[in-house]
């Protein structure tokens, strides 16, 4: 299995240089005078006023540079369960995002707009590496979106709670045993706090189980040379990951008392100081600040322990896509916005600094670790550009950033991912709420259920 991200990282050096130069010359294109209005996804529901202020400032800048384009913004959050309703209902904004796991199927189903010509019109279009775009391209090379914001999974932890429990927040756990031991200490010393917890609901239970399985060297789906995908969650590494959860919950009683947590719920619990450690995307701090009042000085991020052969860090990312319902003029405007908002701030010094300044002015975190779109050199350079704007203590995320570049990065399972995750939710919940949950039977059930979906090809 060849990871697109690995290829991406390997091939990105040259590309980054090209884009950096190209980006400098990027101008608002051949502007026609036709007035056009598009709706773009803004922030997730419940984001703070300051976060919206920062976003709106970016919108103003864009409208100033493109006087014929009017942007309407709409709260948007991709979740597996709600996306199809919006898709079928035609209520998606003109610009929205979908995760890497779903973009390929959606574009094959004709549910994302073909923006090949618009992307080709971008100054750096011809320099795009095929592998960078592959998550948003069909077999004939048509482009349906631009990937952005890839992340790797890490372990978020609350530094303030670590201190309260007498642990050194600068020495986060580095093995699964240490995580378990620290979680136990925290739950004993700070009553009412779950030392360690994982998400369990709305497909995130499967997502995090995939993460902890990967970290132990396991995989949930394998594809052989003939292209046939086999679903195998009933494997030793997944069982070890579930056993770990079981120990934290039932032997140590350090998983708290709420076992129905989806992404937002977990972030909220973490923000409220009810959870001390949990696996998260490396970029989660942005939403923790936006919606959950988390102070960056109390936030710590480290890598998840990797054990066993084949161990890797689960990674994902988003594709900024355009609605199939958009008109030609809207598509052109939409791609300009994607270029401006998602891409330029990665490759163009002026834009990068401008974006960072806007964020910092609204007290939004600058310097949140993401997985570099290109390579470490580009990442370092970008960090260099925004250095004076960084407003989070970089030492707090250093345990993560110092190690992630030497870790193998592995993409998510790619066949019926959301269904697989959803089925695994129930397994994770069972382990956390039923002391005698029969993990073997549950996992076998998931395998046969998802294998049937994969074989049916839908």
């Amino acid at each position, binding site marked *: 299995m060849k990871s697109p991200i690995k290829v991406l990282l390997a091939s990105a050096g040259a590309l980054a240089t090209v884009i950096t130069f190209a980006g400098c010359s990027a101008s608002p294109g051949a502007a026609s005078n036709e007035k056009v209005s598009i709706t773009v996804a803004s922030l997730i529901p419940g984001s703070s006023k300051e976060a919206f202020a920062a976003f709106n400032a970016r919108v103003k800048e864009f409208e100033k540079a493109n006087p014929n384009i009017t942007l309407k913004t709409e709260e948007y959050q991709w979740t597996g369960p709600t996306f199809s309703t919006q898709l*079928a209902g035609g209520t998606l904004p003109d610009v929205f995002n979908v995760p890497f796991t779903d973009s390929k199927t959606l574009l094959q*189903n004709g549910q994302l707009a073909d923006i090949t010509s618009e992307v080709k019109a971008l100054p750096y279009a011809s320099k795009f590496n095929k592998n960078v775009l592959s998550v948003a391209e069909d077999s004939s090379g048509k482009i349906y979106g631009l990937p952005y914001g890839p992340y790797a999974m890490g372990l978020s932890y609350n530094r303030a709670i670590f201190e309260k429990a007498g642990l050194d927040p600068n020495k986060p756990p580095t093995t699964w045993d240490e995580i378990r031991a620290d979680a136990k200490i925290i739950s004993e010393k700070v009553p009412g706090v779950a030392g360690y917890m994982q998400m369990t609901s709305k497909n995130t239970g499967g997502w995090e189980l995939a993460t902890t399985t990967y970290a132990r060297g396991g995989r949930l789906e394998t594809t052989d040379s003939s292209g046939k995908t086999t679903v195998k969650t009933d494997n030793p590494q997944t069982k070890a990951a579930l056993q770990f959860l079981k120990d934290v919950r039932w032997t140590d009683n350090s998983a708290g008392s709420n076992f129905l947590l989806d992404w937002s719920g977990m972030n909220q619990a973490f923000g409220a100081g009810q959870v001390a450690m949990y696996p998260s995307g490396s970029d989660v701090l942005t939403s923790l600040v936006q919606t959950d009042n988390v102070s960056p000085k109390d936030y710590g991020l480290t890598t998840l322990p990797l054990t066993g052969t084949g161990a890797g860090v689960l990674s994902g990312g988003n594709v900024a896509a355009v609605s199939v319902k958009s008109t030609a003029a809207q598509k052109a405007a939409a791609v300009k916005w994607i270029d401006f908002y998602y891409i330029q701030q990665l490759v163009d010094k002026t834009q990068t600094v401008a974006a960072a300044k806007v964020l910092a002015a609204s007290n939004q975190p600058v310097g949140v670790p993401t997985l570099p779109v290109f390579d470490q050199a580009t990442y370092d350079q970008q960090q260099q550009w925004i250095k004076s704007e960084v407003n989070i203590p970089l030492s707090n995320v250093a345990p993560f950033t110092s190690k992630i570049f030497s870790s193998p990065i592995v993409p998510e399972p790619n066949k019926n991912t959301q269904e697989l995750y959803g089925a695994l939710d129930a*397994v994770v919940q069972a382990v956390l709420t039923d002391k005698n949950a029969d993990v073997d039977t549950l996992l076998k*059930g998931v395998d046969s259920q998802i294998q049937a979906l994969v074989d049916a090809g*839908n």
Partner: protein
Amino acid sequence: MTTLERRTEGQLERRPDGQRRHRYSPVTWVRGGGLTNLVFLLPLLIVFGVFSWTPIVEAVVMSVQHTNLVTPATFVGVNNFVQVFKDPLFWTAVRNTGLFALLALIFGYPLPLILAVLMSEVRKAKGLFSALAYLPVVVPPVVAVLLWKFFYDASPTGVFNTVLHWVGIAPQPWIQNATSAMPSLVLEATWAAAGGTIIIYLAALTGVAPELYDAAEVDGSSIWQKIWHVTLPQLRGVLLVTLILQIIGTSQVFLEPFLFTNGGPANATVTILQLIYRYAFENSLGGNYGAATALSILLALFLAILSFVYFRITKSWSDN
């Protein structure tokens, strides 16, 4: 005007239609009030036609089709039904829904009757009693669920667990445990609905003819005997009606499992309606409308049988 008047009069007196049939033409149809009738019926015909009759027919059609809204629908026979029956979650959902309905009967059926009988004998401030009993029904269901979700916080500092602590009971997991989740949902649902049932019974109790009690007293009946031999038999019809209505309602439970637990923990609260919702709207890559409608048709058939029983009962009840 005279035409209209005559027509109105004719309609009101229900003149046999045959009288006018022999001179039927568009003009006489309009003059005879046919157009007026249609104008008055138009809102009903449009709204019911588009938003009730057509969708019902479509539901039946869609249950034997494969539809994805992109390519044209294809006929697949009973495949959707087979797919539903093969889904392991289907049987879980049937079991859970049955459990919900059963628990709702145990919690919510006898209690309102007892309360209503007690309340019917209140002399002063009767309105206060019924207002208090009815108050939870007024709370928007979503607010009620969200509020109780907070009450059910499983930590020792949760609302209910704090109250339990006062009386020396250990913290309960409430909705965080596969065994206690469903009873917790039913408890909230009962709280939200019992007031309505109490009011039904109260109304029925005032309908019991006083002479029946007088007669029973002449026979020397005690209060318990009066309840057993007069009140309950007189309420028989209402009791059966509320029983069926409650089963029909609880078979379609959605809000509680959706907002409390999203079907968890470990699918312990997935209900049939929630499964329909998942088939149709929670598939990130496009809805399975065929399976969703097939399952809803199955549920409708089950409820139709119940309604039939219900009608037989109400009929025999009103015939008496």
